[in-house]
């Protein structure tokens, strides 16, 4: 490959977060090059279920970002359609709604408290009785103690969404380079970014965006501006295609608890949903394990039990495959979005854990807002890089 020309910004990582940042920057007139050591959307993004959720967030900055992103996605998709045409911009967007299901007496109280707080934050939530819930999802368990319906929960296909964002970038003159590893940052005498090193070469630029997902912590350490982002492993089971088994995203009310859990040991809670192809996806597990992707059958067993707990009929359904991936995890469970004060011109956009697909639209927008000095789409304070939980000593 020949030498890569210069850009205003080099985005490192062609997952959905990198793609969303690149798209938003290019929409603001910034010249962007995206580089990825592998192929676009081939790691964490390709392991995602494509959730664009407001239901699984506790009130706070994360929910605010989620609400902004949920609002932004359909607008963004319209803009993409306009720019690159409907075929390239088709990303299987579906507002399917979510159901949080409590199956024990103990789970009723926490679910009610959560939905009350979410409602106060402007999330639309509808409490259903068991009969109404089974009207919506006829195969649901009989053991329902409480159900909340989130009509705004949506889904899209993350690989197609990333491809569409990158196609928009290309349409605006930006570039994507696969198989290019950035192994260092070139700085001037004041310590500000002037280039992204790729082996012997460097791509001249005035800013880089670290959008390396679960590898963002490792990358930030190699360039001397470490942030505390670690991989947290997840597994998903995929069944054979079934005729109309489940319409919404259905999860055990314990899910929010597991998402919010900081513990390294295994957390599983049932999440069941269908894809456009009719397969049923069964999640979710969370385990902080470095980049160890050895199979753990105990995790699969927990996932299977959880899913059967919600939908007993699933017991007879064949699982066709399982796949795992790594989510970028931060100790305070908030993403990192903004410029690194330790190295002017270094930006981070990572740490979205399992919510990166949903949060991508607002993340890209927020980063571009901050980069261009526009009014930010949400308060950037909680996501800043120099918070004590995130910025590590070099």
């Amino acid at each position, binding site marked *: 490959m020949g030498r890569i020309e210069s850009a205003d910004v080099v985005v490192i990582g062609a997952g959905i977060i990198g793609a969303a940042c690149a798209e938003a920057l290019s929409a603001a007139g910034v010249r962007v090059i995206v580089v990825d050591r592998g192929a*676009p959307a081939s790691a964490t993004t*390709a*392991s995602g279920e494509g959730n664009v959720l407001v239901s699984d967030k506790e009130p706070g900055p994360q929910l605010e970002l989620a609400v902004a992103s949920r609002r932004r996605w359909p607008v963004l998709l319209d803009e993409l359609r306009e720019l690159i045409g409907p075929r390239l911009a088709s990303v299987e967007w579906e507002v399917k709604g979510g159901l949080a299901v409590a199956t024990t007496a103990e789970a009723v109280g926490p679910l009610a408290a959560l939905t009350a707080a979410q409602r106060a934050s402007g999330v639309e939530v509808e409490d259903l009785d068991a009969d109404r819930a089974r009207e919506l999802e006829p195969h649901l368990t009989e053991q329902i103690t409480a159900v909340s319906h989130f009509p705004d929960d949506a889904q899209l*296909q993350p*690989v197609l969404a990333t*491809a569409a964002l990158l196609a928009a970038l290309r349409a605006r003159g930006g570039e994507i380079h696969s198989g290019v590893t950035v192994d260092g940052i070139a700085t001037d005498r004041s310590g500000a970014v002037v280039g992204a090193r790729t082996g012997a070469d460097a791509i001249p630029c005035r800013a880089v965006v670290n959008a390396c997902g679960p590898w963002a912590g490792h990358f930030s350490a190699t360039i001397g501006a470490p942030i505390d982002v670690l991989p947290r492993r997840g*597994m998903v089971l995929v069944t054979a295609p079934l005729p109309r088994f489940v319409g919404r995203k259905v999860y055990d009310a314990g899910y929010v608890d597991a998402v919010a859990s900081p513990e390294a040991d295994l957390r599983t809670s049932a999440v069941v949903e269908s894809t456009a192809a009719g397969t049923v996806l069964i999640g979710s597990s969370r385990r902080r394990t470095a980049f160890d992707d050895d199979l753990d059958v105990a995790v699969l*067993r927990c996932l*299977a039990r959880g899913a059967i707990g919600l939908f007993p009929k699933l017991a007879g359904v064949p699982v066709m495959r399982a796949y795992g991936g790594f989510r970028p995890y931060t100790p305070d469970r908030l993403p990192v979005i903004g410029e690194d004060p330790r190295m002017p011109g270094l930006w981070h956009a990572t740490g979205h854990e399992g919510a990166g697909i949903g949060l991508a639209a607002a993340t890209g927008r927020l980063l571009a807002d901050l980069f261009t000095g526009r009014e930010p789409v949400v308060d950037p304070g909680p996501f800043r890089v120099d918070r004590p939980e995130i910025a590590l000593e070099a």
Partner: protein
Amino acid sequence: MRRVVVVGGGPAGMAAAKAAASCGVEVVLIDAAPKLGGQYHRQDARESGDRFKLPDGVEHLAESVVWAIEPILEGHRVHVRTGPADGPDRTGRAIETRALVLATGAYDWTPPFPGWDLPGVYTAGAAQAMAKGQGVAVGERVIVAGTGPFLLPVATSLIDAGSRVSAILEANDPVAGFAARPGGALAGWTKAGELAQYGAALARHDVPLRRRCAVIAALGEDRVEAVLAARLDEDWNPVPHTMRRFEVDAVAVGFGFTPQLESAVAARCEIEGGFVAVNAAQGTSVPGVFAAGELTGIGGADLAAAEGAVAGAAAAKRLGAKVRAPIGAMRRARVGRRFAAALAEAYPVRPGWRGWLRDGTIVCRCEEVAYGEIRHAVEDLDVGGARSLKLATRAGLGLCQGRICGRNVAELASLPDAADAFARRPVAVPVRLGELAEDVPVDEAP
């Protein structure tokens, strides 16, 4: 208690089990079929009894699938379900071992071409299995096409089952290939007699063998009514104005074999050039995991058995058994590999097959993904990785999980990790959710 676990009951797996058992260790042989022998010795399911007998000390788990291989400290835990695949009453078991022999074999490979998804188009292996295993002919007038010596026994099996074979179309010119490597061909002289027998049988039935020819399209409404064949140039591009139509009601296509890599990939074995890399003792890159047979290179039953014998002895040795070096088997394996290399050279797959496809040609049959959709994903969406390509096109996501189309999709999309891109499957074969949820007995590692 010392236990070797062998996965696969074909020539390689049986030889491995025998060799290990003769060294005095306990052996568990796991195989998906009801009877031993694998694809090569495919036993007629209608006959009673088993042609093969394994020595005492070998526990044969028939109708058993390995659905997961889990790494544990100093070994592997092999997860098995036993019972008819479609039945509701399979039992589960997990067997731990420090010496695992993988002999999972290969399945036949065919490139896609227009009409290959029509009823009446069979892989050569499937056509032979139906003829030999069930006595069923796939059609009345059949054409056999592809490449490799395997086409000859397939054609004779079809004739035995009552088909009329219109022709055998061999895409290569094997005489030229063998002439270029006489040493390798000599190494397989024992095979030559076998092939001559098939040749004589085919001559008796007036079956013409056409070299450098291939079926490049199957025609028909609801099933195959005819095929288009063409002469090929050296790269397998059809030579203009050589198209010929054959009226047939079935086609058997075989272009060689592709190894069944899931278990080896699950055990983290290094893959080289599409096959499991092994040393002279059939050891893989993972300590305690051995591989034998087609998994390590396509070479036929004799080579597989020789490698199996070596692997079984090496596995027993790893467990501390006193083992005499299997010198004879190692020599047979060396000779067999030379012959295999000569075969691979004489019957290569040339890139021109990609030109047989049209945008509408289905590449992934389970999800009905056409070649044009894969081109769209690669050319317009810039999708490059195996997993993202699957998600963008749905190719390889259907019931077969890419066993049939994986290699084709990977090659058509020029994926860098084509060989094992579709073999990374933590759940290797379908398992019911209820089975996954069960606690199963574990035979712990001694």
